């Protein structure tokens, strides 16, 4: 019963408010103990993130184990493959974790020849999709859409050297759009988002944001 105090929303509100307050205080005021504390808190936060990877793995493993147990059609044998490719290189690399870098082929081979090229391949899929998204979205349906379209096309023409060959003024327009034309949009978005996050933060730590702070009200 005594433990239930530890689950009260007020406790959580207090902790998040305290940490946020300390971080802000240390930013404005030159009080070394507070600054040191905040530095430590940041270090611990990074350390927690190492463990978060494991929580993620446990969460995912639960899904894949269920897939295998229930023999989910079309998926379950892939879940086995997932486990093999996750655990074999990991356990092979484990004895070497104290060294500056892992050298066993069982880890480096999939890292160099599967993980790395596939990461690049996926990143590059944006090339395909940005193409078709432009094809779909850049239609002069309204004046607003036309503004988007014209600005986009002028910048694209300016970025490819071919634009200069089409019209010698394209690089000038491109430069204006990038240095000046789009600056108000970025500035305003930054300013308003900054106001938004301050207020969102205040609402969360003051408990006005019901969906976050009722943490703990959901029972054990």
């Amino acid at each position, binding site marked *: 019963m005594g433990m239930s105090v530890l689950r009260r929303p007020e406790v959580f509100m207090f902790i998040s408010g305290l940490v946020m307050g300390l971080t*802000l205080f240390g930013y*404005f*005021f*030159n*009080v070394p103990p507070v600054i040191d504390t905040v530095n430590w808190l*940041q270090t611990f*936060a*990074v350390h*927690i*993130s190492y463990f*978060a*990877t*494991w*929580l*993620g*793995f446990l*969460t*995912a493993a*639960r899904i894949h184990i*269920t897939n295998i147990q229930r023999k989910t059609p*079309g998926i379950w044998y892939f879940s086995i493959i997932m486990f093999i490719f996750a655990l074999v290189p990991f356990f092979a690399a484990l004895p070497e974790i104290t060294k500056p870098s892992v050298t066993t082929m069982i880890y480096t081979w999939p890292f160099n020849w599967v993980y790395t090229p596939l*990461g690049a391949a*996926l*990143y590059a*899929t*944006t090339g395909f*999709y*940005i193409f*078709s*998204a*432009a094809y*779909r*979205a*850049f239609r002069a349906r309204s004046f607003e859409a036309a503004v*988007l379209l014209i600005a*986009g096309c002028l910048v694209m023409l300016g970025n490819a050297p071919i634009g200069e060959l089409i019209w010698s003024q394209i690089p000038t327009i491109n430069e204006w759009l990038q240095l000046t034309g789009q600056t108000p*949009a*970025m500035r305003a*978005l*930054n*300013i*308003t*988002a900054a*106001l*938004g*996050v*301050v*207020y*969102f*933060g*205040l*609402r969360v730590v003051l408990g*006005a*944001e*019901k*969906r*976050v702070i009722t*943490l703990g*009200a*959901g029972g054990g």
Partner: protein
Amino acid sequence: MNQLFVEQILFTGRGSSLVILILLIAFFFIGLQLAKMGRPPKMRRLPALDAIDEAIGRCAEMGKPALFTPGITGGLYTEQGPQMVSSITILGYIAEGCAKYDVPLIIDMAAGDAIPLMDETLRLAYLKQGKPEKYDPKMINYYPGQSPMVTGILGHLQRLRPAAFFMLGGLYYESVVIGEAANMVGSMNIGGTVNTHQLPFIIATCDYVLIGEEFYAASTYLSKDPYQIATIAGEDWIKFILIALSLLGFILEPLGIKVISNFLRW
């Protein structure tokens, strides 16, 4: 004497930020107080949030699931953290709708430290609708990184063919990929992010979008709670103050009167 103490203790260049922060906090409470005195402000419509119910209704009608992703976002303790929190508050609302209409909900994400927050929010949403047994922690699909998450979302999109697709959070390159892929399976897309570099893509690929500040105000809007909305009014007042300050600077600075820039540099 007192002056000296302030100069010693307050970091130079941050004074103006502190003044703005104090103003923001003051307006927060003034807004709240005004609402309590019976003058709650009205909030303008945010179509993207009104569309959430429609999207869930669409899923229920078509008997298809809803897919949610906060994007890569990053750890809670980073500058992307607040976006994750905001994303999860919206997820809470979506989950309530899904629980109500028995729409299966799938979440693809890549930030391990947000899992407990997500788990709790979902549990609560299902409990609120009187269906705690319907909540399954296996709704949350974790992927170890951005690109793995993209493969997972792409796979889910074509395997499950969701009727509603939500991408709300600190999106990065994935926005255009998953948005277009979702378009191709004919889902209704609702997107939102604060990351300016992804805004053009969510506008291009989504049916409804939440832009920047709107994204942080989402949960307030969804709550329909007059007291929460009252705090949003404070946000607007400070905007007008900043506009006035900038206009003043716009006129005075070229004349060589550097009051505003000196204040901001303080």
